């Protein structure tokens, strides 16, 4: 059956009342999380995972995916109105978005961001619909060396793109891999690194690590800052003036292409997509000096790019089973909790589930367009919920969520521990996102590496003897060499940002 008819079947499933409601809850919560500064999509998705335990896999993933792409919409509102990014992919929108708001053009900024986000999101899901199956058929032929090299490529790309120091990026990756070794070794059954604790036999739960590193640590960091909320201005007129249509449309087009491309690469992130789009817009502009003074392209481009990214980032997850960013890693965790294995076989084994999720993303984007265009003022009010009230509630929900995963108070203690670890990682600028991703991939990396080594007579050199893994490994070395070169030349730091906190 071709993709289109499968998609239509997906729509039939996604349009049932039950799934529609969970899609609405997902995008609503995602908007909420996006709007609230101090709570990003990673923590938001992790917090809601326990809520999905009682659900069927389809509504569960529909809801969690909704949080992910909706947060990209929500983050814009506070960036534009009160100059405070709701999540890190909207940091760059503050520059021109807030300037536009100060000139009384907040409506136009939010309008163009919503339209751009919608177009970027829809185009990305279309590519997921039509490119995904082809890629999956291709990926079915992958053996352990290919998977190993794709994962190494993704991790090295994160190290290369994120953080100010390559040493710190590598430290994060290795720490994540070592944490993944805790518990029973899947190969031999030996229990490793449990330090005498029976509770560690099953390993560290992914939700505990994610919530500690991204939820609790964020609250601890904010406790040092003054988190007073500003009163947002009233939003009027969401359609930009006619003379801005053409430049905005072009920026949206470029943002879509850029975001999608980055979504396909394991290891990029939504923040990187929006940052690159902004600098690209500035470069192609006839008069770059307008940027920083309320240029509409500076809002349209990045906001489109981060949404296109969010849709396209699901392609590597669905086709290869490899998460490309921390939030997608949490989705992967949710997949496994519900007994689904993302990867090329997903298209064959669980087509009903898969196409329903894809269809729900079209529906979710339409819901978001409605939420963002006529209801922008309502969301601006959400931004006024005082942080002093939110922070204790978020902490309590984190603890409760972690507890409900295994009904274990020990896990809650571990959450506090990883909260402290996450706090220090952020203080020391060691990228926690890289740690989380390598933790998720850890067991798989070890497993594929052992398989590769047992297949080969020439050790890991075997990776270079097969065409696909050979190309990827060469790229890995290239990335590493370039990162080392740029850090010696002190050109790093332009993209120094932790992904999707």
């Amino acid at each position, binding site marked *: 059956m071709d993709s289109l008819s499968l998609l239509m079947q997906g729509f039939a499933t996604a349009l049932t009342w039950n799934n529609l409601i969970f899609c609405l809850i997902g995008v609503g919560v995602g908007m909420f999380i996006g709007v609230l500064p101090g709570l990003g999509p990673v923590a938001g998705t992790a917090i809601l995972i326990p809520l999905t335990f009682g659900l069927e896999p389809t509504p569960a993933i529909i809801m969690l995916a909704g949080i992910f792409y909706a947060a990209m919409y929500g983050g814009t509102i506070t960036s534009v109105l009160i100059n405070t990014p709701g999540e890190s992919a909207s940091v760059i929108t503050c520059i021109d978005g807030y300037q536009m708001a100060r000139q009384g053009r907040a409506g136009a900024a939010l309008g163009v961001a919503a339209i751009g986000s919608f177009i970027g999101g829809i185009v990305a899901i279309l590519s997921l619909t039509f490119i995904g199956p082809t890629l999956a058929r291709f990926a079915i032929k992958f053996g352990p060396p290919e998977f190993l090299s794709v994962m190494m490529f993704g991790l090295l790309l994160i190290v290369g793109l994120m953080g100010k120091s390559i040493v710190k990026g590598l430290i994060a990756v290795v720490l994540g*891999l070592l944490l993944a070794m805790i518990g029973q070794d899947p190969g031999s059954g030996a229990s*490793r690194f449990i330090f005498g604790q029976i509770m560690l036999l099953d390993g560290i739960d992914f939700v505990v690590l994610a919530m500690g590193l991204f939820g609790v640590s964020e609250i601890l960091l904010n406790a040092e800052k003054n988190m007073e909320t500003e009163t947002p201005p009233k939003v009027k007129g969401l359609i930009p003036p006619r003379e801005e249509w053409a430049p905005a449309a072009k920026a949206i087009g470029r943002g879509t292409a850029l975001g999608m491309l980055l979504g396909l690469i394991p290891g990029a992130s939504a923040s990187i997509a929006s940052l690159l789009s902004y600098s690209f817009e500035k470069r192609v502009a006839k008069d770059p000096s307008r940027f920083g003074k309320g240029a509409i392209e500076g809002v349209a481009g990045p906001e489109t790019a981060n949404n296109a990214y969010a849709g396209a980032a699901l392609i590597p997850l669905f086709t290869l089973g490899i998460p490309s960013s921390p939030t997608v890693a949490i989705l992967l965790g949710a997949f496994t909790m519900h007994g689904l294995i993302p990867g090329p076989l997903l298209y064959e084994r669980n087509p009903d589930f898969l196409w329903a999720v894809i269809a729900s993303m079209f529906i979710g984007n339409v819901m978001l367009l409605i939420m963002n265009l006529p209801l922008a003022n309502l969301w601006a009010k959400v931004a006024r919920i005082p942080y002093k009230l939110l*922070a204790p509630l978020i902490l309590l929900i984190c603890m409760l969520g972690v507890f*409900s995963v295994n*009904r274990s108070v020990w896990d809650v203690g571990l959450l*506090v521990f990883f909260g402290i670890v996450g706090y220090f990682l952020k203080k020391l600028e060691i990228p926690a996102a890289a740690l989380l991703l390598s933790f998720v991939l850890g067991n798989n990396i070890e497993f594929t*590496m052992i398989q590769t080594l047992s297949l080969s007579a020439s050790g890991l050199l075997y990776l270079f003897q097969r065409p696909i893994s050979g190309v990827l490994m060469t790229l890995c070395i290239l990335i590493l060499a370039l990162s080392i070169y740029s850090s010696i030349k002190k050109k790093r730091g332009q993209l120094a940002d932790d992904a999707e906190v």
Partner: protein
Amino acid sequence: MAKAEAWKPTLSPGFWGSLAVMGVGIVFFIYSLQFPYTSEIGPGPGFFPRWLSGFLIVLGVLYMSNSIRGKDKSEKLPSEKGLSSILFILGSMVGYVALIGFLGFITTSAAFLFLLLRKAYRWYVSLAISAIASLFLYALFALFLRVQLPMNGLGF
């Protein structure tokens, strides 16, 4: 005096961070020696951890040398006021973990929220928010999602 100044960068947060990284690497390396390096199919359960922890120690040394040479200037420790509020939050969380088994979910959660909210609002407002939020979360998780939450001796 000059000597003291020259030594100052070594006490930067990055220095302690690199020590911690090395420490973790060493602990994992020693621990990994317990597991066989090879197995019938090739690499054993000790293979990957040993290489990883060895690599982590090397990275820790590189980090330390960068830090001593003063390449890291952006790292800061919390201010005194920030530190006390962080410790207060952490203390409340540890207390929560310690007490929830005895006092039950509702009481412990309400107490936890009240502790953290009490400076922000008048005491009766904080108390009301804490009680309502705890009851709501109990209803959501225990009644709706059927998660078994810890109870106290009185059954709540």
